[in-house]
């Protein structure tokens, strides 16, 4: 017999309460999980009627959209991946920790800027500007990395006192005015370059010599705008992976005479590789599904074209503008749901892959941390 801590009559009540609560929580939890599962089931269920419509039609309608989706995502990744990974490497390994604790949340806040705002700026401001100043844009894209390298070169040549005042660990900040000046320089030079080397009008040149058409809202614009939107998610995850590389590894490499960059390149990056890979994957997932930016900045032309200067049309944008008007049960309705299913499966696979890779990485770190 146990000593009664409470009146005996209340014990069974407590037990009962506990059972009921546990049951409810379990039911709730499983219910939520089932609801989540229902998304996939619903999408598959609603695409089944398509089988009766015949598949030739389906393929020809959806394939330009699939191509557009991939093209937009690819353009965004081309823009975002180098910037995000570069930023992640710098802030994980070169930046002073004080600065890092400020910069990281700031860059992560970028993720919070709604797509509709970025899309509006890209579609109504950036696109016409780029069309008028195509040379400047292309020049900027080439000139900015060069100017960063130039800054590095100048820094190595500079006197020691200046180098101390402007250390590499704070370069993320003091390069901002430098880059702004360099961008202004490029904008100033662009018309001259266009005049002297490109025959006065780059777009005319593209048209006459290469037969390239230029659409105002094109893959280039989408790439820049959507790239801007996915930089933070890639950056944040890749930075986490790099910053979590056990310090002992880096220190060991440096003790053996490697420079900081060599240690990063040869040790940290291979170790954190899976984490960086999963960051890129998650970025790709976001790029594939982003709706408002593509809707507002892509021109929505269902074309099979590889040209970065031509428009595109993606699954997500088509769903957003056509689905509310589609009659439930009609062909368009089911086709659009098939598009949604494709998006769902793609992002789910990509994210699962990323998650599995990341968990493996976490275990590897634990092992390394434990062993050393």
């Amino acid at each position, binding site marked *: 017999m146990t000593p009664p801590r409470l009146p005996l009559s209340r014990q069974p009540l*407590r037990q009962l309460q*506990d059972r009921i*609560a546990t049951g409810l*929580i379990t039911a*709730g*939890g*499983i219910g*939520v*999980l089932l609801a989540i599962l*229902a*998304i996939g089931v*619903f999408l598959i269920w609603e695409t089944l009627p398509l089988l009766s419509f015949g598949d030739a039609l389906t393929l020809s309608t959806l394939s330009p959209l699939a191509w557009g989706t991939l093209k937009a995502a690819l353009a965004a990744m081309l823009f975002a991946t*180098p910037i*995000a990974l570069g930023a992640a*490497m*710098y*802030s994980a390994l*070169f930046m002073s920790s004080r600065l890092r604790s400020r*910069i990281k949340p*700031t*860059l992560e*806040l970028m993720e*919070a*800027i*709604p*797509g*509709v*705002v970025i899309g*509006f*700026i890209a579609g*109504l401001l950036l696109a016409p500007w780029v069309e008028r100043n195509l040379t400047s844009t292309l020049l900027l894209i080439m000139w*900015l990395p060069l*100017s960063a*390298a130039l800054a*590095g070169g100048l*820094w*190595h040549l500079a006197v020691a006192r200046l180098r101390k005042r402007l250390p*590499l660990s704070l*370069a993320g*900040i003091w390069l*901002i005015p430098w*880059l702004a000046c360099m961008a202004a320089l490029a904008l100033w030079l662009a018309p001259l370059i266009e005049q002297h080397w490109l025959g006065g009008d780059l777009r005319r040149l593209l048209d006459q010599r290469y037969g390239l058409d230029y659409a105002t809202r094109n893959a280039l614009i989408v790439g820049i705008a959507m790239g801007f939107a996915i930089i933070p998610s890639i*950056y944040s995850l890749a930075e986490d992976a790099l910053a979590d590389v056990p310090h002992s590894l880096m220190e060991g490499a440096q003790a053996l005479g490697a420079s900081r960059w060599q240690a990063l390149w040869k040790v940290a990056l291979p170790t954190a590789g899976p984490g960086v890979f999963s960051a890129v994957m998650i970025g790709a*997932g*976001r790029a*594939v*599904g982003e*709706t*408002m930016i593509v*809707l*507002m900045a892509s021109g929505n032309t269902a074309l099979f074209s590889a040209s970065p200067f031509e428009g595109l049309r993606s699954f997500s944008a088509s*769903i*957003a503008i056509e*689905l*509310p008007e589609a009659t439930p049960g009609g062909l368009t309705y089911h086709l659009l*749901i098939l598009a949604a299913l494709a*998006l*769902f499966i793609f992002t*789910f696979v990509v994210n699962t892959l990323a*998650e599995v890779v990341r968990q493996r990485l976490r275990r590897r770190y634990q092992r390394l941390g434990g062993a050393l």
Partner: protein
Amino acid sequence: MRRLTPRLYNALHSGLWPWLCAACVALSLLMLTALLTLLITRGLGHFWPATLEEVTLVSGDVVIGQPVREAPLPNADSLERLYFTGNRDITGANWRWVAIEDIRHQTVPNDLIRLERSPWGDFLGRLTAVESEGQRLTGQEAWAFVNNTLAKPASQRPAGQLLLTTADGQTLYQSLDSVTHFQTPNAMSWGQKVVTWGQRIWQFLSEGPRAANTGGGVWPAIFGTVLMVILMSVIVTPFGVLAAIYLNEIAHQNRLTHLVRIGVRNLAGVPSIVYGVFGLGVFVYGIGGSIDSWFFSDELPSPTFGTGGLLWASLTLALLTLPVVIVATEEGLARIPDTQREGAVALGATRLETLTRVVLPMATPAILTGMILAVARAAGEVAPLMLVGVAKLAPQMPVDGEFPYLHLERKFMHLGYHLFDTAFHGEDVQAAIPLVFAIALLLVLIVLALNLTAIFLRHYLRRQRGNEC
């Protein structure tokens, strides 16, 4: 190669690459700053009482207008300038392009006025006189009279009419009751401009849209956004917390739980539009359609719940943000040391008691963080709402004095969609762009504020936890 130029190789590796990486950070920050600066200057600048210019052209025409922007003329090296001229009832258009070369001289006379009227929009020109109740006022008196009159509520305004003169000397009679705002921007002092600026921002935040969304404020959209987000968090928080508790505290930690956890995390990466499709197919057409056929059959074929509405939008967004809440709560739960739970159990507490007395209080900040992150994500989300219930203009607010006060089946206005609609569906895109900037700024501010709250909360939570451990 490497042997030939080892110094160059070294310099490249330890010298240049870090700089390129640093430039990536700098570039991201530069882009972010540029975006925010653009939004702030254009968004807030929209409310500033702009100076009006009087331009005499080479052809002898006189234009009164507010300079908006300049664009290069094609095939020539000069520019043309866009003026907002108003007076659509007289000239047929609100805008006029003027080539810079055509301008003979331009002045900024103090007696120019700007009237906001209905239905014709703005009038730009001069106020010659006011005729009201038998008296005729001119000059400064007329200005004072108009200002006083417009300050009164509509019912107490005296009848009267304004005698207006346009740039090219035409006269126009405008009855006083069709005028909503009166401004004399060129004659204003700096202080007056600041006051007017503040007033116009306040009107923007507190009034409803006018003239078919081309003017007025965004109050219904703010209200709709906030209400939808509140409803969503009321739905998502309990379910998210339940699921997290189940996964973390009750379910056996086996392979299946592990898989489920991965699945839940992945759902955070599923595109929002897919949730929108699900919401439309299941909530609106499925559940909504059934509700209609059971309870509202006398209203059919016009749907009550079988069309997008507040409830379905909130539910869809709740589903969308569920993974966010689950993940955040789980993180909080996982951080609670097992010793705490074991201590509670050792003292004889049942599982329910351990949960409610020990675990949940300790996890509250994490739950809160999850909720705020969910709210921040939902507030900026537009694509799924386009499918499940947002409206271009919802004259009935979802909350009013009519029973049952909260109308879950009504459509509502949303800031993000309002932005999209104003920018792409408006009547005059040129006039809409400044307004769109203002809306964009407001939306970004709301979302950033929510995110900052979450960040500080997390920071605070971590510091507190640090003290405890």
